[in-house]
């Protein structure tokens, strides 16, 4: 069943990455709304608000101030209100072991931020397309890492 992906959250303290993300969305002609938060606490505040259930997908950087991305992921997956939220890890960091941990913690996809902007766009697109197609919150392990 195809979902409609409309409301996006980007949790990233990096202004430039946030800008790149918005440009990517624009250039991909996505009309979806993007809400950007700068740290883990802001993110969790947002997700505990009444409007929380209106968000479809979260792009989560791991290196967040105050509260780390992993901590946020754990809280989200324990929260019944957020059981439909797709969480895409969006990090510069790549490590096989860590990737495995994230999969086990319930992340939906893992993206290592590419340097090449065209790839940057492409991998965001892939994430949005795949998320719309996926039936549950997690694909098989072999489809967990998204590459442009």
């Amino acid at each position: 069943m195809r979902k409609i992906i409309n409301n996006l959250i980007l949790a990233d303290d990096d202004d430039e990455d946030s800008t790149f993300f918005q440009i990517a969305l624009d250039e991909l002609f996505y009309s979806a709304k993007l809400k950007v938060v700068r740290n883990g606490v802001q993110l969790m505040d947002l997700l505990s608000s009444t409007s929380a259930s209106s968000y479809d997908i979260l792009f989560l950087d791991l290196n967040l101030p105050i509260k780390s991305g992993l901590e946020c992921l754990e809280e989200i997956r324990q929260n019944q209100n957020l059981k439909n939220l797709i969480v895409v890890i969006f990090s510069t960091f790549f490590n096989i072991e860590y990737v495995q941990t994230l999969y086990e913690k319930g992340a939906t996809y893992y993206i290592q931020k590419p340097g090449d902007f065209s790839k940057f766009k492409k991998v965001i697109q892939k994430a949005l397309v795949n998320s719309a197609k996926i039936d549950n919150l997690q694909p098989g392990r072999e489809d967990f890492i998204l590459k442009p």
Partner: protein
Amino acid sequence: MQKEQTTTEFQFLSGGGEMGKLTRQKDWSKTSVGDPSGWPQSLRTTISIILNSKFPMFLFWGQELVCFYNDAYRPSLGNDGKHPHILGGRAEDYWQEIMHIIRPLIDKVLTTGDATWSEDQLIPIYRNGKMEDVYWTFSYSPVKDESGKPRGVFVTCTETTGKVTALKTLEESTNRFLNNIKQAPVAMCVLRGKDFVVEIANNMMLELWGKTSDDVMNKPLFVGLPEVKGQGFDELLIGVFTTGVKYEGTERSVGLPRNGKIEEKFVNFIYDAYRESDGTISGILVIASDVTEQVLTRRKIEESEARLNIVLDASELGTWELNLRTRDVLYSKRYLKVFGYDQDVKLTHEQLLSHLHPDDREIRDAAFAEAFKTGSLFYESRLVWSDGTIHYMEGKGKVFYDAEGKPERLVGTIRDITDLKNHQRELEESEKKFRELSNSLENLVVERTTQLEEKNAELEKINRELQSFAYISSHDLQEPLRKIQTFSTRIMEKEEANLSAEGKDSFQRMQNAARRMQTLIEDLLSYSRTNSSERKFVYTDLNKIFNEVKEDLKEEFHNKKAVLESNVLPTLSVIPFQFRQLLYNLISNSLKFSDAKRLSKIIVMGELGLANKFNEPALISGKEYCHISLTDNGIGFEQQYSEKIFEVFQRLHGRSEYKGTGIGLAIVKKIVDNHHGLIKAHGKVDQGATFDLYIPTS
């Protein structure tokens, strides 16, 4: 006077001493014999013989057995008895008490005419105012008249009471003697004759012999007691029997039967000749006593004394005894040795004391004072020998008291403890040295430990710093680098047309440099993580890891048109994420160095087996390993580099030919090390490479 007349009248009545006189004076007319004038010739002759004989004689005459006797007979009648009234009296009137004995004899003589003979016959008679047992040897013979008919009985007799009594006394004393033997408190026996027949033996002797009365009594000694034969006693007995010289044996060993066995006993004994009254030797009197216990006890004492001497000798103890009254001192040779004398010399107590070290005099005196209080002496002091050398001694002793409880003697031992003292000092010194050494060692160890701990802490700090450096690398360095890449791609996308050809080339180079830097950072991070990460072994299906890696590299295989194959891999205890990295790096490595001239093929094979199954000498014999091999048909390498390729930053090719940081295989090596395994590389240029991994299963 009338009587004397009669004497002259009858010649046959002349002489005869007192009895002659009495017979002459007797008025025979009043008796049945009648006046002597009427006596027949045979009577007259007989009377004449009787009165004139010095041998005691008596006559019973006629039917009434009228009694006549002479002076020699008179004592037999005693002083206060029948004499002299019996002269001319009738036998039945005067011999009432013995008629029952003599009447049959008299009748026999009178009827048969034969004489009788009796020896030592007891015929008790009344004399000396009482009945007396009187023994006689006598003969009754007939006195015949002219017609040849016996008319009287002529008695010649001698009283043997004295002899018989002596014999009786002798018999009684013999009995007493035998009785004494029987009841003697020592073993006694009498052996009779040259065969030594056991005539009598008391119970103690039987006991000593280990025999019963039936065994030995009235038998030759060596028949009744054959066990003793041949032990030398027969010769001794014969010696005493022939010479009459008494033999005394002391603590003589003899084997005697006891409970069916021969036991050694010790006896003291006397063999004495048993003499008859005439002095001839008729036997042996044996007196013996069993002294076995005394001998054995003494032997034990002697043995323990001997043992004590051995002990004293071995223990090098000198012994001494001091008489506290006389100050006389007795000592053994060993005692003198302790004082430095090799010769046996006689020294006084004062001379001995002079050897005591002057400084130790107090110690010795105090010890003696203490000994008189407690009864035992103990002290150590120095002795100065005559040659001036100093020796250590140890004295021990015990005080003996007299009946009044006053100290009488001190008996003790002395020992030279110079060697002991020296050893003790050496030991103390060596112990002291050891203690010092051990203290200094301890200090050294403490110091080294502290240094090590400091170094450790320093290393840990460096390690932490390295980790934080790795963290910085991963994020803080990667971020700006990625930004450079992103911005540069944005410029190329939007502004490519505005750049000159040279500008475009420079821009391209800049981007390549940035990409290299990114790879380098990632690899370095990966390498450092291999060092420090938690090593948690998990029993893992290697097929699962293999498939994950295969999936991660799916695209690369697709792009290179390469093939990855494997058999069914074993399950193994590994650090899962590290093992994934290992396979990832190895496969990536093979993929990277694939030969463009042919279809790339990478084969992974796994198997379990004991060390000797694999032709690899570095494996530990008997241990089970998992062998994983990876074979490719890539460009290969020269075998001489098979070790070098595992070193960090080692590259066999230029950067322009094959990208890479030279870290990938170093990580592989490190992971294999973490699994206590072994990795070997075999290469042939232009043909391919094989990597053999051996991971122990436990």
